[in-house]
């Protein structure tokens, strides 16, 4: 399995990150966040190798003018925490289904396996782990259908 992470090239253009930060401040009353970088995550549960995924990412999944990506490593180096939100296995992941279709269109053949997706938020700022948990539970993830994992900068 390989993991593709995609985000904007310039953090200033991260509208999802920006509006998430506003929601956290206004709706949860948590301040101290400097910035949030938002990334789309694709888990390739297929037999495709890293080189092929790199080609697919470049040519079918991203716009090189405004987006950048990494494979099997984090797309942001500087962060204090990240939260990764993923749908439960039994909830239909439409984005993942369309992603597989896009890969098949690009390769011109059917492929085995599947793609699951996730949303990942990289936080920078002075916030506590408890606050990150609150943000995850009350804003980013709906635990009825999603799970979340929190990562800390080592």
């Amino acid at each position, binding site marked *: 399995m390989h993991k593709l992470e995609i985000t904007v090239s310039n953090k200033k253009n991260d509208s999802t990150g920006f509006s998430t930060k506003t929601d956290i401040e206004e709706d949860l009353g948590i301040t101290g966040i400097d910035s949030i970088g938002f990334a789309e995550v694709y888990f390739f549960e297929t037999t495709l190798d890293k080189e092929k995924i790199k080609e697919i990412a470049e040519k079918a999944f991203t716009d090189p003018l405004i987006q950048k990506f990494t494979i099997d490593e984090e797309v942001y180096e500087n962060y204090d925490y990240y939260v990764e939100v993923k749908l439960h296995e039994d909830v*239909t992941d439409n984005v993942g289904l369309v992603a597989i279709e896009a890969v098949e269109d690009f390769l011109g053949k059917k492929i085995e396996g599947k793609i699951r997706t996730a949303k990942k938020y990289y936080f920078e700022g002075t916030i506590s782990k408890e606050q990150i948990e609150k943000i995850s539970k009350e804003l980013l993830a709906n635990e009825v*259908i999603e799970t979340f994992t929190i990562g800390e900068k080592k």
Partner: protein
Amino acid sequence: MLLSLDLIEMKKIQKHFSDLKREPTQIELETLAQTWSEHCKHKTFTAKIDYTENGKREQITGLFKSFIKKVTDESKRKWLVSVFSDNAGIIGFNDKFNIAMKAETHNHPSALDPYGGANTGLGGVIRDVLGVGLGAKPFANTDVFCFAPHDFDSKKLPKGIMHPKRIFKGVRQGVRDYGNRIGIPTVNGAIIFDERYLGNPLVYCGTVGLIPKKMEHKKSNPGDLIVVLGGKTGRDGIHGATFSSIELDESTSSSAVQIGNPIEEKKMLDALLKARDLGLYTAITDCGAGGFSSAVGEMAEEIGAKVFLEKAPLKYKGLKPWEIWLSEAQERMVIAIPKENFEKLKEICDIEGTNATIIGEFTNTKKLELFYENELVGELGMEFLHQGVPQKELTAEWSREEEKEIDFNESVNLGKTIKLLLGMPNIASKETTVRGYDQEVMGGTVLKPFVGKENDGPGDAAIVRPILEDWAGAVISNGINSFYSDLDSYWMACSVIDEAIRNSIAVGTDFERIAILDNFSWGNPEKKKVLGELVRACKGCYDCAKAFDTPFISGKDSLYNEYSNENGTISIPGTLLISALGVIEDSRKKVSMPFKKEGNLIYIIGETYSEVGGSHYAKILNSDKGKVPKVRFEKAKKLYSKVSKLMKNQKTDEKIICACHDCSEGGIGVALAEMCFASGKGAELFLKKVPLGEEIKRNDLVLFSESNTRFIVEVEAGKKNEFEEAMNGTAFAEIGNICGKSLVVNGLDGNKVLQEGIDELKRAWKKTLWW
């Protein structure tokens, strides 16, 4: 196993199978539970009710038959095409086309996952319209939400409930992402707030579609193939139909939640409309609640069907036969198609990139036969399945207390009061929500949600031209006000019908060509008082709709909207959404609500009573007293006929009525303020000229009473006589004129009682929900 059957129903099933001398299989029990669920059979609306009103007892056999459908059965309207018999109601539009509308709730799923719930709610109602007759092409959506206040104290939030603001944001994103991506404009809606929606937010979605004449009937024949189109089947949403028929509690599981895929639905929609125009199939229905069980069960009701469950395309392996049969996976439709046409259908589906799979065949056995890998896993007689459900017997009670006189003094500062009213969430601008929705796609939207100089004034109704070569427009409006239910649900029902019709007429709809849809969201009908209120509301529906001869064409109900936790049970206020679908023959004759020209005259049409019970004015003063607004049926009918006739007959370029706005929440004061700031023009008003239905001695009551059946109109100064002549015989009066940049109100004694700059008023109206 979650079956949601009651004891009488279970005994009936037990007897049925003991007569057959065998045990039921799981798939049979699940099919019966789904088909007999409240969601599918509307058991409360067909129940026998022992009803007592103020000590007087009566027996009601079916609320639906006795009050809702009765209006339509007795209606003389010739444009009724297909009502209450299909997925949506159909009415006449022009000489080639009819229009269809359906509105329904998606409350329970939206409480669990607001985004996915609202998303699939819209997807579902679009499929309903696509599945009416032989298929209508959806061209407009409407959405109405009820939430708890966005500023609810999070510390008081019960366990397991999401904060209302989070629900609100999720729902609006869900509607936006589905409607915009499938490419259908979202043109009309409303949002109301009350704390009792905390555990049960309401999400109503409606869709209007265009269908060629003669395509309104469908009939599946024995020998036709059963074909499923669109998405694949997974373990999604199993038990949605049975689940939506019970109360929510903390332990409610997630299996009913899904996220929609509008692109999948769009591909299916395009393929189906092509196949429809080629006359390939004989019947169609959507896979909604209950999945195949409901869709195939309904289509085969008169004939019979054999289904081979292993043939259904699956998202993943490992589904049990009953799961395939009951799955509520989104974006699927079922059609009945003669064998010889399947190849052609398959070709179209390949071009559009969607699936078409044969899963069985219609028969003439009057039986439903379910197979899985050549083994018979279920066999049910159609008659028992569809007619076997025992009629419920319920008891209802309602008693009226004397209406209370108001207990508060006149507000001294009316300027401050009007700004408070404008800022109340129910009245405040919903622009940040509505702007996210595409109103322009398809290019036929004539009158949009926002009108006026800066395109931010609140329009009364939307007009959409579904055929761009024709000036005829479909007019979509709504009425909702659950606050009046606290006083008397009878007058609540009359008021919301009046409001929906009033909004429609305000933009120029022909009063003779309005049809309405009912959507009840109520608490637990097994509680006598809750059901009593529902009976009262249904009575109001009959009386009001009958008086106007405005027939119901479709409807839906969502009951058991209660939430229980350790602190007790919260039940929602009785909520009735009336959606109105009207026709304006020439949409160039539309009238919008902002004032147009300085120096023109302001008139009010309709009488004002001292009716502030359940009003927003009473709400800001924390009072639950006062008289609830009534509808004076005969007077109202006459008034609507005259206004509608005048608007219909006026020339498109020389209008007599240049602007029209309905008076509802916040009364004359709010309506006038909205007309001012939408246009950037001020107005001067003389309260003593307002025609009163009864003696009122207080400025605040005249200004903020929410009496029904009133319009504020702008009349071209030179056409005063023409207007007055046309209105002769109804209550109306010239109450002011358009001038300056402020709203100025002169009180009953002639002294100035209010003067506010229009920018100031607009700011108060916009700031509350500006996120």
